[in-house]
């Protein structure tokens, strides 16, 4: 076997240009496939992390239909500009906080918290902004769906004993040039800003966050009747991404009892994944097939060029199996060399792209999973080399030396 590979290597070295072309073909294909597969895995991991984060959490509320029940909205004094709502601009009903226990009892629900999101209009010609009521009693649900101490970009988060202080979302703070120590006017009161937060892609957000009693007090001043242990949104964290659809359905069903309107929940993002990945997989399959065809064509041409040599070798006693193995070995070496270089190039390309994207996955991915993936791709490339060499090798082995030597 060593002789076969030695002779195959010698042949490749002799036909430098052709070998270079064949190796380059493998290199390009393998680099592309490695980079794409790693990016695909990387993207899936990132998406899975995002989906696990986003898709496992949802808001439960009931949209308000004015004609159906005009009194249930919480009767703001300025119903045109103010009211309970959820993003983007869905007016919502007020729901009894007692639903909290029922939602929490659902097995697919890990945590739940009440939430008040109220749209204020500041002054006669003032701007509109939202106030969210933060209830530290339900930190488990709130910190994953709304805002948490980790989101503070300057200043501090709410602390025990705090009262009549606010946190301001970074975008709102930048818009109004608010800093820690600034004050915001809500209703007729001034509230000092103790922290600026940036909660990015949390399930719910507000321009200004207040502690629950302060928010209730501020909102009550804008309502025709005060709030009675009510919330307009429930922040729900399901027991994982797989449990989210069931949890949403059950919460929806729960909120339907005694209420006319269905709950509108964000469906899991995971349902919308897949199209781009399927397309990529198709592209990868096409590249793999083209690689086999290219390699086969290359080997076929080599065998055609070497008919005379093969006939001589058979005439001096080489067996069909020897000729066959020799061609397969050449094909295998080309695949090995091309795929090794391609895998290296692909990995470097992947590192460059993923780094330039500013994204990171775990170190374990870079040192274990990615190399394992590369190994699998290289093995597939070697299999490709064998497959691509089969037909040309079979043709070479079937060469009739008498016929070829006679025609010379």
């Amino acid at each position, binding site marked *: 076997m060593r002789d076969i590979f030695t002779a195959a290597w010698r042949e490749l070295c002799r036909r430098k240009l052709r070998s270079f072309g064949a190796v380059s073909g493998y290199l390009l294909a393998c680099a592309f496939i490695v980079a794409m597969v790693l990016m695909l895995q990387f993207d899936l991991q990132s998406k899975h992390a995002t989906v696990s984060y986003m898709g496992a959490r949802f808001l439960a509320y009931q949209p308000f239909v004015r004609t159906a029940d005009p009194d249930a909205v919480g009767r703001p004094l300025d119903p045109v500009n103010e009211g309970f709502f959820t993003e983007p601009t869905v007016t919502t009903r007020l729901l009894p906080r007692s639903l909290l226990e029922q939602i929490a009892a659902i097995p697919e629900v890990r945590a739940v918290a009440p939430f008040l999101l109220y749209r204020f209009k500041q002054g006669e010609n003032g701007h509109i902004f939202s106030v969210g009521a933060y209830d530290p009693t339900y930190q488990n649900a709130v910190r994953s769906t709304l805002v948490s101490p980790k989101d503070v970009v300057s200043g501090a988060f709410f602390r025990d004993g705090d009262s009549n202080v606010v946190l301001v979302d970074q975008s709102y703070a930048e818009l109004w040039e608010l800093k820690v120590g600034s004050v915001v006017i809500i209703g007729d009161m001034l509230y000092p800003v103790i922290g600026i937060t940036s909660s990015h892609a949390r399930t719910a957000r507000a321009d200004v966050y207040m502690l629950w009693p302060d928010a209730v007090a501020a909102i009550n001043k804008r309502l025709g009747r005060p709030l009675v242990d009510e919330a307009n949104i429930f922040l729900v964290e399901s027991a994982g991404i797989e449990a989210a659809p069931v949890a949403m359905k059950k919460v929806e069903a729960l909120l339907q009892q005694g209420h006319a309107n269905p709950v509108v929940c964000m469906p899991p993002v995971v349902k919308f994944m897949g199209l781009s990945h399927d397309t990529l997989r198709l592209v990868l399959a096409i590249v793999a097939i083209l690689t086999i065809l290219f390699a086969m064509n290359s080997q076929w041409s080599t065998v055609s060029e070497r008919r005379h040599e093969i006939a001589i070798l058979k005439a*001096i006693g080489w067996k069909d199996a020897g000729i066959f193995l020799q061609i397969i070995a050449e094909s295998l070496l080309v695949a090995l060399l091309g795929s090794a270089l391609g895998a290296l190039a692909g990995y470097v390309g992947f590192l460059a792209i993923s780094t330039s994207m500013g994204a990171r996955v775990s170190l374990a991915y870079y040192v274990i999973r990615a190399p394992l993936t590369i190994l699998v791709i290289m093995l597939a490339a070697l299999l490709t080399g064998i497959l691509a060499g089969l037909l040309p090798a079979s043709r070479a082995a079937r060469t009739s030396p008498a016929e070829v030597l006679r025609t010379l």
Partner: protein
Amino acid sequence: MGPLLRVEKLSKSYHTRGNEIKVLAEVSFSVSAGELLLITGRSGVGKSTLLGLLSGLDRASSGSIFFQEKEITGLSLAELAELRAGSIGMIFQSFNLIPGWTARENVEAVLMHRGINAAERQKRATEILSELGLKDRLENLPAELSVGQQQRVAIARTLVNDPVLILADEPTGDVDAETAAEIVELLLPRVNSGRAAMIVASHGLFDAKLASRIVCLKDGSLSETAQ
């Protein structure tokens, strides 16, 4: 002890566009070790075809070939290849060296796939090439050698496996008289010592005086010719 090679009623036909072209018709002859059989005849008469059949490169239409008392016409391709690699040496008119391989590699090729390690192959190839005066040309490609040197490489390739039957197809056809004499000089000792038999196909340039017997191939049949 019987003949090294015995051919009985060997026929070979080709079929082209529905027509049967009979090249050999029930040819019979035998050759013993120490003999040089010269097969003469005009170009295209079927001399190369006959050598092809004897070496197992081609299949006969009918008839039998016995090599060392064993019928080889029914052997598999692998068995015939084994026979060529171990016992039969071939010399072609156009040398048929592999252009991209060095002189040494061309000779070594015969020993490959036969369980002989690389060092031993290299040693034997170097020895035989040195014997034939090509010690300084071991790593040269055929294109870098003169015609005479190329033919000597081809002879070295034939002799390296110490064959008992040498089949030479127009061995002096493409070379000048001096080189032709040189080639014969290299091959004859092996025959004259009784270690091998040699069958030479030539259309007339080979020195007939060197042959033990001369047969003429004409219209598919062999006829013994007086020397």
